[in-house]
Each structure stands twice: as C-alpha cells, then as structure tokens.
C-alpha cells in the first residue's frame, strides 16, 4: 500500500506544554521539526486547573523563560489575574501565580508554533517508534501508515497513552476533555524494552457562572501591581484589569454525602489501577484521610474571559455524577449550581523515568527523548521545563554538542529532572520548594542571573538579552560594594529615620549594608539618608537588597553548593558493570548497574547506595587513573588535579 514518507530532524509526539516547548526549542535551534497531536485544536491545552505558576512552579516558569522557552511569555499575554504568593515570607519562596484565559492561552501558543520557522504541525496519532539494529532512533509511524524518518524523537504524550476517564461507575476510554486517546504507542515502546507505569490523576467539575451565588463567597483579588513572568515583558504591559476568584468551604453535610457514597468511587472500589498523587488528593481522599477536619477550602476560578465555566479548585473527584451533583450543591453559593462538565479521574500510561539520563534521553534507545507527564511528573510547568530540556538536547545531540544538564544547585528544573531520573517514583511527581535543598540561591527573582548565559550559549537567547544580564550583574556587584563601604554617621536626620521604622538609633557610624540587614529596614527605606545613591532599575535594587540582607544564609548555602559540586564533577563511566568494583555491597551494585549514574554525586543520591559505597566508588575512580588512564581522562579531563589538589 502506498504511504507517505517524509524526513525530519526531530519528531515531537504530543503538543501539550512539554511538546510545545520541545518543538519550539528544537526548531529555533535550526532543526527541521514536526510536532504531532491528536487534535490541532488542543495545542497547549489546560485540561485541569486554569492557572500557571504557584509555589515553586512559578520558579520553573521563570527558569524556562531565562533559558529561552515560551511559557512565561505566553501567560503574560493571556493571564486574567496575577498574584505573588508568599509575599510575607522570604524571597526564596515568593512565587508568581496567574489565572489564565485557557482558550486565549492555547490560541496564542498555537500562533507562536504556526509562525516558527522549521516547525511543522501535523494532526495524527503516532503508533510506532522505529529503531535500527544498534537501537538508534530512525523514525516514527502513524496509525494511518505514514513514516517520518528522523534523527531524534521526543515523546510528550501527557495523559493520552491508553487513557481512560472514570466518573463513578462510568468509564470512557478517552483522553482528557473527551479527546481521543492514543492506544498504540505503548505496545511499540514495550517491544523496545521500555518499562511502563500506570498513573492516575483527576480534575474537578466545571460549573456555570450564572448558577453561582457569589454573595456567599469571599472575593479573592489579584495583586495591585502585577509582575510579569517573562524577563522580556515590559511590566507596564501587564497592568490590566483583573478578574476575581472566589473562596467557599465544604461542610459536614458535604463530607457525609461523600462518606455515604465512597463505595461508588472507583478509587475505593478498586477499579482504578493507577497510582494517584498524594499532594493533589480528590475530595474523597481528603475527607477520608483528614477525617478530623470540619471543612476544606474550595476556590472558584474563572476558566477565561469569554466563557461562563468556573473551575472548582480543591474538589476533584471520581464519584458518580449524581453524587457530584448533590455534593457540590452543599457548598455555600453553589446551592443551585449547574454542572457544565463532570469531575473525573483519568488513568494513563507513563514510564519509569529512571530509564532516562539527566539529558532526558533514554539510556537504552539512542535519540529517544521524553518529557512531561509521560515521565511521571504532573503539572503544566514541570512538563514545560522538561520539554524545553528535551527539545534542546535532541538538537544538541544531532549537532554533536554537549547536552544541557542542569544540576540541583542551579535550578528547580535541575532538581526536578535529577529527582525523576535518580529517585524512585511511585506517584506523579510535583515540584515543591522543599525539594530544592539550595532554594535560597534558586529564587524566582534571580532566574535570569542563573540561566540566561546558558540559554545564550545554547542559542535560544539573543545577544541583546545576554548583554543586559551581564550589565545587570555588574551594576548589582558595584552597588553591593558601595553599600558595604559607605558609612552613615549618627546625624539627626539618620536617627529620625531609624526611629520612624522602630529601629535602634546609631551609637557610631554604620555602613549602609549593616543597616539593610536590620529586619525592620531595607535598601529602599534608606534612600533619604543615602544621597550618593545612583538611580537603578527595580530588578537591580531587588537583587542588591536580597543579597545584602540575607548575606549570611546565602554564603552558607554557597559553601554547601561547593561541597556538592565537588562530587558532581567526578564523572562515572557509562554502561559499566559495578560488580567489577570490589567492596561494594550487593544492593549498591544492583542499583548502580540499573541507574548507571553520570557522576559520583548522582550515585550518592540513589537510595540503597551508602556513604561507604560512595567512598569505594571514589577510590575506584582514582584507581582508574592508573589502571585505565584513557578512560579516566576521557571522563574527567584534567579537572581532578585542580579540584583535589589543595
């Protein structure tokens, strides 16, 4: 039978948040790229919550932006409310969260994709990956029989693989929002030796705005002054009129209805096979697990400007339709609620991400990359971050360049990927600030300082943007030095200002920096008594203030990072048989053989590898210098001498 045959550099499977970033990065790096989706109308679809960002996820969006990704720009164009979360807490946990106009978000992202050179959009379901004898990717096949030859494939299939949706006793074999599931690809992957998992997640009902009595709820406003996600967005452009969200609560009646019907929930009747996330529990989970709580907060959030649908945040469920109907109506303000779409749980195939390198390439299939929920993560932002890295690395591989591997000390994306590929995952992985051990350094405000240079080296950041970051760095440093050195005397004016802020008056002269470090003061408050100050941009001032104020803590973390980097620098051989190393415990050998860590740092994070095992590998590596110098220097260059000599 005659069939279409075409050639590309990179094939991206799926056009969700991971797929879009992957395809854009690859095409922007000059790779002929084709992106497949089961429906072109569902590009960058947000099938669950209508927002981007939030605690730690906001950090990821900023990092994507600094590396040259699209998510931050797209939400800046389409948000309808924005808030900086945790503003009363330390700068490390400030996090942007914006409500999106869902329809606008997909439309704008689609526009970007459609207008990117080297990028082709194709509606089709991929059924097979094709490899040669050496397990190198050579192409993919669609269900209709067409073949697309390529050098790299990036799978971003989200929740579509063998998906089924459950609402009580009703099961539909479809992807999210009733979209067509992808039912062939899993088989092809299993045939290629890929280890699959089955996960589940869920979403709440959507309710018609006209049926809601908002007078019984608390109104939730956006911030007065909106801060954009993207470092390239002019802050003036995002000062729009915002819409509100609404807060209401469940009550004992709600909980009674849920308890009385638990046996009809597929979660509890045992119909659901997939593992669900603990951090995003369904309302039935919350009621069972936290039985002592009398009420749970529920946020009613708009899905967009041009729709009446409202998202019921905090009340995802897989209970049957009639129970949902009764349960939602027990909430104040929802007494007459009309459901537009039912809540449902969704099950889908994904992989054990331990099969991947930190570059997101499969260890056993060359040129096969993957990102997003397919890798066992959850969330739009986590997906986009991985998509960007996978897209970059597919291009790097084809161009014969070094892969982009972000480590735990430089980004949340690095933490995310390291956790996925190194730790054991038994549920969809969500980012949290507590997962980042160096979070004081990984702030959302300094994502550009951390990553723009990398984006520039890769080729996704313009010269102009790169130059600005270098200039910003210089200005910050200069101003910090000035603040550490300029002394302020105990003049009348100074004492008056200190008194105004409830700060102890000066006995002797003090540097500006010392004053900034006082909890009740900051850089900007000192302006009247610091006449030499040059006018500086807001983002420069912000950095100066944070770096001076939290200097002690930041220095401590930098010291920890130095320790961490030391082990991270020591590279290990790949496809290596660890049973060759005498003195490793059996459990460690098994784990190391399975994971094939890139470096000693990663090895030490694998559960089951003890500090003694790490020492043994360290000694082995040193031994390699003599027994197999070629391999040693190929792995570690001449770094060793520099880092270990005193």
């Amino acid at each position, binding site marked *: 039978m005659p069939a279409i045959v075409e050639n590309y550099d990179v094939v991206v499977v799926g056009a969700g948040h991971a797929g879009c970033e992957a395809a854009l990065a690859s095409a922007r790096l000059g790779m002929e790229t084709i992106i497949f989706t089961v429906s072109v109308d569902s590009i960058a679809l947000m099938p669950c919550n209508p927002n981007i960002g939030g605690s730690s996820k906001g950090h990821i969006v900023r990092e994507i932006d600094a590396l040259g990704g699209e998510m931050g720009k797209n939400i800046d164009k389409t948000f309808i409310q924005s808030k900086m979360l945790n503003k009363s807490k*330390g700068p490390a*946990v400030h996090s942007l969260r914006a409500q999106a106009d869902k329809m606008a978000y997909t439309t704008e992202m689609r526009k970007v994709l459609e207008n990117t050179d080297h990028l082709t959009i194709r509606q089709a379901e991929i059924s097979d990956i094709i490899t040669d004898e050496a397990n190198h990717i050579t192409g993919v096949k669609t269900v209709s029989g067409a073949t697309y030859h390529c050098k790299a494939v990036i799978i971003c299939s989200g929740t579509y693989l063998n998906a089924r949706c459950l609402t009580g006793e009703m099961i539909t074999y479809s992807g999210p929002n009733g979209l067509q599931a992808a039912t062939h690809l899993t088989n092809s992957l299993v045939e290629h030796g890929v280890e699959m998992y089955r996960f589940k997640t869920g979403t709440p009902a959507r309710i018609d705005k006209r049926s809601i009595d908002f007078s019984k709820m608390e109104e939730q406003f956006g911030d007065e002054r909106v801060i954009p996600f993207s470092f390239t967005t002019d802050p003036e452009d995002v000062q729009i009129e915002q819409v509100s969200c609404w807060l209401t609560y469940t009550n004992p009646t709600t909980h009674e209805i849920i308890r009385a019907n638990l046996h009809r929930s597929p979660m509890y009747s045992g119909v659901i096979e997939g593992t669900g996330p603990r951090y995003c529990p369904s309302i039935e989970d919350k009621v069972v697990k936290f039985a002592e709580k009398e009420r749970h907060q529920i946020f009613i959030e708009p899905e967009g400007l041009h729709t009446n649908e409202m998202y019921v945040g905090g009340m995802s469920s897989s209970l049957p339709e009639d129970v949902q109907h009764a349960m939602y109506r027990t909430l104040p303000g929802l007494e007459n609620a009309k459901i537009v779409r039912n809540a449902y749980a969704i099950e889908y195939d994904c992989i054990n991400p331990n099969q991947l390198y930190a570059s997101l390439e499969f260890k056993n299939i060359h040129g096969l990359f993957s990102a997003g929920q397919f890798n066992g993560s959850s969330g739009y932002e986590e997906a986009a971050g991985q998509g960007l890295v996978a897209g970059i690395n597919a291009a790097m591989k084809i161009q014969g360049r070094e892969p982009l591997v972000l480590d735990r000390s430089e980004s949340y994306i690095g933490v995310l990927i390291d956790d996925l590929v190194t730790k054991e995952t038994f549920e969809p992985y969500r980012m949290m600030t*507590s997962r980042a051990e160096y*979070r004081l350094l990984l702030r959302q405000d300094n994502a550009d300082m951390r990553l723009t240079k990398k984006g520039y080296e890769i080729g996704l950041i313009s010269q102009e943007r790169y130059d600005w970051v270098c200039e910003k760095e210089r200005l910050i440093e200069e101003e910090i030095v000035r603040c550490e050195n300029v002394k302020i005397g105990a003049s009348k004016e100074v004492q008056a200002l200190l008194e105004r802020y409830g700060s102890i008056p000066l006995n002797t002269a003090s540097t500006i920096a010392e004053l900034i470090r006082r909890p009740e003061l900051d850089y900007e408050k000192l302006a009247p008594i610091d006449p030499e100050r040059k006018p500086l941009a807001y983002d420069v001032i912000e950095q100066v203030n944070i770096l001076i104020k939290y200097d002690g803590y930041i220095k401590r973390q930098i010291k920890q990072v130095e320790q961490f980097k030391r082990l991270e620098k020591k590279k290990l051989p790949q496809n290596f048989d660890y049973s060759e190393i005498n003195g490793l415990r059996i459990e460690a050998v098994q784990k190391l053989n399975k994971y094939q860590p890139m470096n000693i740092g990663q090895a030490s994070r694998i559960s089951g590898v003890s500090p003694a095992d790490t020492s043994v590998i360290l*000694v082995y590596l040193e031994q390699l210098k*003599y027994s197999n110098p070629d391999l040693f220097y190929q792995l570690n260059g001449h770094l060793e001498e520099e880092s270990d000599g005193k």
Partner: protein
Amino acid sequence: MKSDTIAAVATAMSPSGIGIIRLSGDESLEIIDKIYRSKMNKKKISECDSHTIHYGYIYDGEEMIDEVMVLLMKAPNTYTKEDTIEIDCHGGVFVMKRILETVIKYGARPAEPGEFTKRAFLNGRIDLTQAESVIDVINSKNSFALKSSLSQLKGSVLTDVKKIRGNILHEIAFIETALDDPEHISLDGYNENLLSVVNHERKEMKRLLDSSDNGRILKEGINTVILGKPNAGKSSLLNVLVGEERAIVTDIAGTTRDVLEEQINLHGISLNIMDTAGIRNTEDVVEKIGVTKAKEYANKADFIIYVIDSSTALDESDFEIMEILKDKKAVVLLNKSDLEVVTSKEEVEKHLDKTIIPISAKENTGITELEEKIKEMFFHGEVTFNDEVYITNIRQKNSLQDALDSLNLVVQSIEDDMPEDFYSIDLMSAYESLGKMIGESVEDDLVNEIFSKFCMGK
C-alpha cells in the same frame, strides 16, 4: 578547593605510654595556634618551619589539658598531602579524649573511618597496589562504626533522639506545607508555637549532652562476659565486683535469666560486665533463650571470666564452655574455695590453658588477685577493646552539639523576626545532624511527612 579539617586519635585508645592525636586539613594550623602554648607563650606554630617539633601545652581556653610535643608538617610533604599536625600527649584515655574534643571544639571534625588513608589516596599519595586495602579499611571500619553507633547507643538515648527528631520533622513539614500551599495553610501566630517546641527540644538535647559526659551515650570499655554453669556463683561475683546487690542471687539454679550489664572501673580500666544465664542443657524454654544469648555475648566479648563451682565435678556443660573459651582472652575462677574442693586447679589445667584463680565470692577472697590479673593483661596489651567506640562516642556528641547549635539559630531567627522559610533551613540541619547520630539519613522523610500529616489543597 578547600578541604575541611579532620581529627582522630592515631594510637590505640588504651592506656599506654604515649598517645597521638592527628589533624589534617586546611585549618590544622589555625586550630593548633588556638590551643597550643609554648613555655613562654610566645611561639605560633603556624609561623614555624615545616617538619619541626615543638614542646608545650594544650589548652582549652584557660584550662591546661596536657604537656605535649607538637609535630608540624606543612603541605604537601605529608601523608595526606594536606597541612598536618600531630599532638603527642600522655597516653591516658581521658587525656586523649579531652585533646580530641578540644580540637573538634576549635574547628576540626571527627574523621570518618579510614578517612586519613582515603585522603592520602585521593591526593595521590598512595599507589595503586594499596587501593584495595583502602577499600577494605573503609568497609570494615564503616561496618563497625555503623554497628557500634547503633548497638552501643543505649536504648533510652535512641528513643529520645528519635522522638526529638520526629518532633522537628513535624514542624518542618508544617512550615513547608504552608509555603507550598499558602492559600490553604496560614502561618499566622505560628512563631510562638514553634518557639515553645524548639525550646523544649533544646532542653532535651542539653540533658542528653550532659549525660554524655558521664559516658552514658555509648558504653566505653572492655566488653567482659561472665560465663559458668547455673549456680556457679556468677551473679555473686558480679555483685562483689560492682559492690551492690544487682543480680538476683539464690540457691536455685537458673535464676539469672536475662543478661545483666554493669560498668565497673578497675584502676582506670573500664569493664562492661555482662552476667549471663548459666550454660547447661536445659529444657526450660525461657532459660534456653538466656543460654543462647550467653553464647552470643561470649563470641562478641573482648574478655571472658569463667566461673567454676569447685565444690562440684566438671561435666558436659563445662566442656562446652571450655570449647567457647579456647581462642578467647579469659581467666578461670574456681569459686566456692570456702567449701570442700571437688574440682582442683590441676584438674582444670588438664583441659584448659588459661590462668586459674581460686576465689570465694561469698567470703570475698581472691578478688584482689583477679583485679591484678585483669590489670596486668590489659597493660601488656593482651586484652584490648575496639577503640572506635571512643571515637564513635565523640562523633555522637559532636552531632548532638551540631543539632543543638542549629536549634539555637532557629531561636535567633525567630527573635530577629526572619521569614518562616529561614526557620526550616536550620531545623533541617538539626534534623540531619540527629540523623547522623542514629545512622538514619534524610531521604524522602520530609515529603512523606508533608503528605501524611497535612492536607494539601488543589
């Protein structure tokens, strides 16, 4: 790249003529300058030439600890290729311990097992052929350290540390949940609550630290087991040695069912004495457990005291015990010398090549000879014990102190009105330090605690 400074006792931790405490790392010179005083108190060791020896004193603040010789060896011509200091002091266990504690107080940290050798190797000092032995050292010492840190932690200490750790983790998880889900969980008014929890845990930790100075965190000393048939007089002997009625002494054979433990000090030598159920072929199940345990203890012991009832004849059980004793350091006591002798010294000598002392626990005769014999064996190095215990003990204490310091920082942060996310940084350090103490790592504890204890939104 800077390396931290490690310290350890390089000689055996037993009474001997000389003890050596070794330091290696970038801060070695800085540390010795802080604690060394020459006779005229004018010399600074860091300013002296490399590979020289200096007479003087080690001080902890204003307290003089010992008269010493300090060997100065500057990098790179040292064993580890790092700045190295050796302090030669008097060989008492107490002195060595005090000096080690002092260098740690002034900035060093206790060396991990085999760490000097590991550094020497990694810095290119040792050649290839020695690599294998380095791995062996790391492995054997680590397995011992792990075993000792767990098995030697007295039950109550382990329980206490676990409890403190659990409470700290709970607070971190609460803070983190609130940070991850600020719209569902508020931290309003939380500071006071945290302050009271932290103050409570600080008190607990101070109590543990105080008790550690009395050696109550780890048992230090020669593990000594008293073996013998039921009613041979083991418990009476223990009572005489300890000086109080600790074991149950009756005429009914098989009264001591559990293994009793006592620590005694014989002329500066610590003995951990374990009295065991008498070994004999028994049908009594409860007693059988005791017998199995006794054999187990005997196999682990550094030193065995074998008590024979000289008023009865040797039998199968005695020969069984003698079998256990064969390759062990042991003395044989012929007890009940006040009664008519059935089993003589000569009779026992036929079967066993060990020192035999006739005693009467009841009349307190022969005990001095026993003490003299133990002392003699110890000072001749015949009986030793694993000195890692001392090191482990110092390491434990160090971890506990680190944890306490971290909690002090939390209090400081609360007083300074720092944002809540800063509290969790120091709480986490305290949690990790305590984890080191009981040999538990962090892994995914926090994430599990967050999910199991607090209801996240979404």
